[in-house]
Each structure stands twice: as C-alpha cells, then as structure tokens.
C-alpha cells in the first residue's frame, strides 16, 4: 500500500471516500441500468427501523431479520449502528451495499474528526450521509436501494435530531419520529399514535418495541422478538453522554411485559372466526 502523501494542490482534504478512490480501493461501479435488472428478490434485504426523539435525545431501534425474497437469510442481522460518539445510523434495503455504506460513513466521520481536529456538526454528518445515498442511486435503480435513518444528539442545540432519506439522497429532517423499511408504515403509525412531547426513556423504548412488534405482526419481512434463540431487536439511545445500546436483558424484559399485555387483551376479545366452522348460521364468514 502506497503511503498517502499528496502535493498541496491535489490534497483530498478530510474526505475519506475521495481518499479511497485515490488509493484505488473504490468498490466496483455497478453496471449501467441497461445491463439488465438484477433480480431484487435474490438480494438480501434488511427491513424495519425506527427512530424517535425523546426527552434526553433520540432512540433508534431495528428488527433483526434479513430476507431474500421469501427466504429468511439472517435472523440476527444488526441494522442500528453508532455513526460516531453522538450519532447513530440505521439501515433498510439491500444489506450488502447498506453495510458498506455504514462502514464508509463511520470511517468518514472518524477520519474527518482526526484530520480536522474537530468533529463535523450533526447537520454536516446528515448531509454527508445524503451524499452517499445519492451516489448509490445507480445501484438503487437496479433494485439495490439503501434507505438509511440518521439520528443524533446535537451538542450545539442540546437536543436530539433525526433525519430520513429517500433513494435519491433527499434528506428530510423529522421533528419527532421517523421509520423506514418494509414495515415502516405499521411501525410509523404505532409511534405516531404513542408519541407525546417530553416522553421519557422507559416509555419511548416501550413505544419503539411496540412499533416493531406491530410491524412484525403485519409484515413478513420484519422479524419479531425471538426468545427461543434469544434474539431481540437492537435498541440504542443517543444522548449528551453519547451512543448507548440498550441491554439485551432490558429489551427482553420489556418485550415480555408487552407480550403479556397484548395476550391478556387477546384473551378478553373474541377469537378469530374458526375456519372449520363452515356451516356458520350467521353468514358473516363469507
């Protein structure tokens, strides 16, 4: 590996992606869309992630399932990562490019911080990720879309902030919550109904877990809690103290409470119509 010394005129500055290109390590450019579409079902996809702002910062959560078409390709995939000390990134979409994007994003933030001697602003980090998504657009057109969520604690404004993206790299700041991935519609609705200003840590974790549960209930590509294999969604908080992953035991415990609650509710309510009961006199099982 050549030692990366540059003349002042050709210096790549604190841009790690540019440095990677200069070093000849750039990932192969995906073939042009005219080269035929890749079967999107053959590519491993990650699914539902949510982020919610709360009293001390933001919370981010993601299920653990990755699917290729109707196959479950991984049961324990992680989709929520620390981007740096005070921010987190979560991904949905084609797993391979998404993981690569997160890795490059983490490195970019750290590289900038080391070269420049100070970290990027939260806004700067969000824009950086937007650029990476935009650069990925050709691959997205071929069915390998990556749609991340970015959230962090803004040390200058002293509050949590969150950002949503679209495949073109469009960056949208959300004030209270955001969700992306195949189960995002259901997860987002649960969060929307349960969110209130000034929500605390315990309540907001319960809320995102409920959101993921409901998403998993409606969307086959989203995984629910798996007590048999001891696999639970990844939940992390970002506050002024930085990124902290919520302990697996705490997540398991909160799920247990939630499951007990909805089981009790299900027992009280009527059962679903039984399929064997063909000759139903009421005629409402048409």
């Amino acid at each position: 590996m050549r030692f990366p010394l540059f003349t002042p005129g050709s210096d790549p500055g604190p841009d790690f992606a540019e440095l990677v290109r200069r070093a000849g390590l750039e990932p192969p450019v995906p073939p042009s869309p005219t080269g035929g579409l890749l079967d999107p079902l053959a590519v491993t996809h990650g699914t539902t992630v949510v982020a919610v702002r709360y009293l001390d910062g933001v919370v981010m959560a993601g299920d653990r399932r990755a699917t290729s078409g109707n196959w479950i390709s991984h049961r324990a995939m992680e989709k929520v990562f620390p981007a740096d000390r005070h921010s987190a990134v979560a991904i949905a979409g084609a797993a391979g490019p998404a993981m690569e994007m997160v890795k490059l994003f983490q490195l970019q933030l750290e590289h900038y911080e080391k070269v420049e001697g100070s970290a990027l602003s939260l806004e700067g980090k969000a824009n950086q990720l937007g650029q990476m998504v935009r650069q990925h657009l050709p691959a997205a057109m071929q069915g390998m879309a990556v749609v991340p969520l970015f959230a962090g604690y803004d040390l200058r404004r002293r509050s949590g902030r969150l950002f949503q993206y679209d495949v073109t790299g469009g960056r949208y700041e959300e004030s209270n919550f955001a969700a992306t991935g195949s189960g995002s519609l259901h997860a987002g609705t649960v969060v929307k109904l349960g969110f209130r200003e000034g929500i605390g840590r315990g309540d907001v974790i319960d809320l995102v877990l409920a959101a993921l549960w409901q998403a998993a209930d409606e969307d086959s590509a989203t995984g629910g809690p798996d007590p048999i294999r001891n696999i639970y969604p990844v939940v992390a908080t970002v506050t002024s103290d930085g990124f902290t992953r919520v302990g697996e035991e705490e997540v398991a415990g909160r799920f247990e409470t939630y499951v007990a609650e909805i089981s009790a509710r299900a027992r009280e309510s009527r059962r679903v119509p039984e399929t064997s009961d063909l000759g139903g006199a009421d005629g409402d099982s048409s």
Partner: protein
Amino acid sequence: MSMPFYVAPEQVMKDRADYARKGIARGRSLAAVLYDDGVLICAENPSTTLRKVSEIYDRIAFAGVGRYSEFDQLRIAGVRHADLKGYSFSREDVDARSLANQYAQILNQVFTHEIKPLEVEILVAEVAEDPEIAGGDERRDKDQLFHILYDGTVMDERNFTVLGGEADAIAARLDESFAEGMTLDQALRAAVKALAGSDRTLTSDELEVAVLARSNGRRAFERIEDERVDQILGAEGQ
C-alpha cells in the same frame, strides 16, 4: 555556464543534518512516558489550537516537534494511511511499527534526495491491548514508542522518550524520576518536572497533554483538559 563545485557527500549530509537539527532546536520539547494505563504524551506548547500531539488510530498516537507545517503534513498522511489500511483489511491490522517504518522511509527519502530536509522529529506511540484481548500476541501486549529522527533513523524506545532540541538534558532528568507502573498523576508530574528543569515551572497554559489509555476502550486517545492538568500538578505540594 557555471560548473557546480564538488562537495564531498559527507559534507552534504553533515550540512543537512545541522540544518535540520537547528530547525528542531528552535521549537520546544516533548516527552512521552509509559504509565500503568498506557502512554502519556506531554508537550510544551503555548498554543491551544495548533496541536503537537494527536490521534492516528484506535491505539496509536502521533506527536511531533520542529516545524509545525511539516509534521502536521506527516500526521495527516499517517491518519490516511491508518484509515485506509483499516478499511481495506481490518482494524486489528493497523499497527505502529509499520507506520513508523513508513515515516522513516519518507523522512529518509526527503533527507537524501530533496534540497531541504524536514525539520521534524516525530513519535509514533501505541498502547498495548488488554492482556486478555491480546491473547499472547507479542506485538500487541507491550506499549510501544517509536522515535523517528529527521533523517529517518527509527528508535524503538522503552519506558520513555524525549523529542526536541534539549532532549538529552530532559531525558536525563526524566530518567531520575521514572519508575515502572506509575499512575497518570505521577507520570505527568515527572514529565512536567523534566521538561521544566530546575529553574522554571510550567503551568497548564504552556502544556499540551494527552494519553493513550487502555481503559478508554476502542479509541484510546484522550486529551487531558487544562483544569485536570492543573489539578494534578497542584496536588503535588500537598
């Protein structure tokens, strides 16, 4: 057309070395000391924005004395090299020894082939991993200090090292007070005392202090704030 005079190679090298040494001696010195939790780097530096000590990678730090623009360029190249290496292989594969050798190559190249040698002396320090994580890998279970001179000479130092014009005098003073397994407070006091000498006292305003601490987790590098430095230095008399 003028003919260049013949100058003996010995003379050329000597002139260049003198030039570099003079440049380095104009700046202030810096000391690195091993302590119980890693490596302490303490520089005499009145500036709060232009840094002499900085982070290269998870367990690697860089320090330089001499001409700021030159060692800062080397620092950035080091960060780039380490980040690229970690990106294309693995974070574990980035080590101080290989980086120190790269620096030595560059400094040697410039010293022998360019008009002007770099007027810098640099330090590449690496903190050892926890013995449990290192798992008997001997490259990773010892703290390392690589001291590299303006001409590319690399020295693998033990316990402590001093960079700069007055290095010998400071190292002699540090040798008296150094003990293995010092705490951070003891190590900092020893380093500051050695840097100051008998007729001066240094305060946090004139110092830049940073550590590579094993207990910090993945990114071991940490700057010690002025208040904490004052606290440690002030506690000495009690």
